[in-house]
């Protein structure tokens, strides 16, 4: 039995191209009846064919191209092409742990979670340490020259409580520890009960607490720094600080995540934010296309058309084919048939082998 008889790939090829003779068809059917591997091959080719024809994933192609260009070969000084190494592809046992220097390092979800915990712990520590430090410093190093410390009973609250900004992100809020409490019990004991999610952060914060003064007796009077004559801006009720402006890359990443999750509303909001706040960012053009598609799918063809036009007007070429197809579909939805036909024709002229060819041809033959 020949190899070809073992697995008749040629017959599968001919079946796909529609050139199978009846005799070959019988042969193929007989083989498939007992060969699970070939059945699987046939089925998988059909499965993946749908993927090939699917719309492109909305990655920021422009960024990929820009990243790759950094590795473009310099103009050769000699014409010896044969002496250059040929591409052999990455070996399977390459050290995968070392990311390519040009790559944006993308952390797996687990590592991202660890990073978030670390950030939360750092913020917690910073907030808690600042609170404690403000009470500890004067008692450790003495009061500022010329200012006498005020001795107050342990049960008298500190006269000045400067509100602190709320911790960022999802970190659990850390209540300020009034000096009186800190003095009455060990620091670890007076840390307020926190939600379980912040337990780790607190553990880190407690371990990282700077050296403390000796714990005084609960009944002992406490040396509290004098009331701080804080600048008006400090004592005045604090207005919530505006959230730091998010970078276009983080907005783009979050929007893409939302889109992949199927949360179209969030994706559209985030993409819209990106375009409003960073219209000239490197991600802006890919965003216009992504938002255009979402708008098209949600029935807002007018908005979609505008976004596709902006993308095409930018001169960006990576996802131009998709933008042209989107534009034609938007025009179709808007009932602008003449422009739609022109758009499909332009697409076919620019990309004769486009995956949208079937749709374009059908629309052009329509009517």
């Amino acid at each position, binding site marked *: 039995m020949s*190899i*070809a008889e*073992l*697995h008749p*790939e*040629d017959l599968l*090829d001919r079946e796909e*191209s529609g050139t199978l003779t009846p005799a070959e068809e019988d042969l193929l*059917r007989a083989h498939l*009846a007992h060969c*699970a*591997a*070939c059945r*699987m*091959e046939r*089925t*998988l*080719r059909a*499965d*993946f064919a749908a*993927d*090939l*024809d699917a719309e*492109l*994933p909305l*990655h920021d*192609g422009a960024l*990929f191209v820009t990243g*790759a*260009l950094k*590795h*473009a*070969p310099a*103009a*050769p000084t000699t014409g010896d*092409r044969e002496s*250059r190494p*040929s*591409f052999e*592809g*990455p070996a*399977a046992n*390459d050290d*995968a*742990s070392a*990311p*390519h220097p040009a*790559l*944006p390092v*993308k952390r*797996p*979800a687990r590592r991202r979670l660890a990073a978030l915990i670390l950030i939360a712990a750092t913020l917690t520590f910073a907030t808690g340490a600042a609170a404690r430090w403000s009470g500890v410093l004067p008692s450790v190093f003495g009061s500022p020259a010329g200012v006498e410390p005020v001795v107050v009973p342990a049960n008298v609250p500190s006269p000045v409580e400067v509100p602190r900004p709320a911790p960022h992100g999802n970190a659990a809020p850390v209540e300020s520890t009034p000096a009186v409490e800190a003095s009455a019990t060990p620091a670890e004991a007076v840390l307020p009960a926190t939600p379980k999610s912040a337990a780790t952060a607190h553990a880190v914060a407690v371990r990282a607490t700077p050296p403390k003064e000796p714990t005084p007796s609960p009944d002992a009077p406490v040396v509290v720094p004098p009331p701080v004559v804080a600048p008006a801006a400090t004592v005045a009720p604090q207005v919530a600080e505006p959230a730091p402006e998010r970078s276009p890359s983080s907005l783009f990443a979050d929007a893409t995540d939302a889109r*992949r*999750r199927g949360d179209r509303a969030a994706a559209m909001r985030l993409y819209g934010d990106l375009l409003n706040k960073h219209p000239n960012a490197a991600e802006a053009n890919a965003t216009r296309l992504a938002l255009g598609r979402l708008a098209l799918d949600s029935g807002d063809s007018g908005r979609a058309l505008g976004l596709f036009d902006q993308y095409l007007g930018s001169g960006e*070429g*990576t*996802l131009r084919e998709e933008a042209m197809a989107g534009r034609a579909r938007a025009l179709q939805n808007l009932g602008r048939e003449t422009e739609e036909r022109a758009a499909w024709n332009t697409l076919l002229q620019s990309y004769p*082998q*486009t*995956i949208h060819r079937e749709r374009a041809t059908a629309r052009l033959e329509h009517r």
Partner: protein
Amino acid sequence: MSDADFPRSMAVEPEVAPSPAMQLAAQAAKGDVAATRRLLEAVAPRMMRVVQMVLGGAHADLDDVVQQSLIALVQALPSFRGECEPVHYGTRIAVRTAVAARKRTRLQWSRRDDEAETETLADPRPLPLDAARAERRKMLLRDLLADIPDEQADSMAMRFMLGWSLEEVAVATGAPVNTVRSRLRLAKEALRRRIEADPALADELEVQS
């Protein structure tokens, strides 16, 4: 898959004038940055799609591998001899890069306690039965690619995922057709063993004739 998407005539006829992409590749190989950019813009969509097919759409390293593939293409351009269209050259590089990434991912996960893979966790929404089965079949193939030798995995990916004919795979890999046939036979044997090892899987995947 339509012929238009992956043209069957991969080999470049000597008497035919070089295609625009071929001209761009030649200029890019000489260090012309503008030509390199235009070439990348032309081939990047195809390479992105191929990487997505090999890795799965929700793979955590998808973007990185796309970037690696494009960089590999740029670095390989000086050795490109124009024996096939640049898009096929790029496709081959994308397949090899993605298969290698798949193997690395498998290796990394095998060193961990849990066996969860990111792409299986990405979308918890239930799929219709047919789509779920198709996805399961694709996962089976992607897993298999990580376990078989590189040459077999490359040929299998080009054949099963891209739908290429034996001749196309032979041109892309620079191997004789019978060598490709042999590699595919070995890869299919591995696939058969995997299916037979789990009869329930075969039923579930509904691999019908």
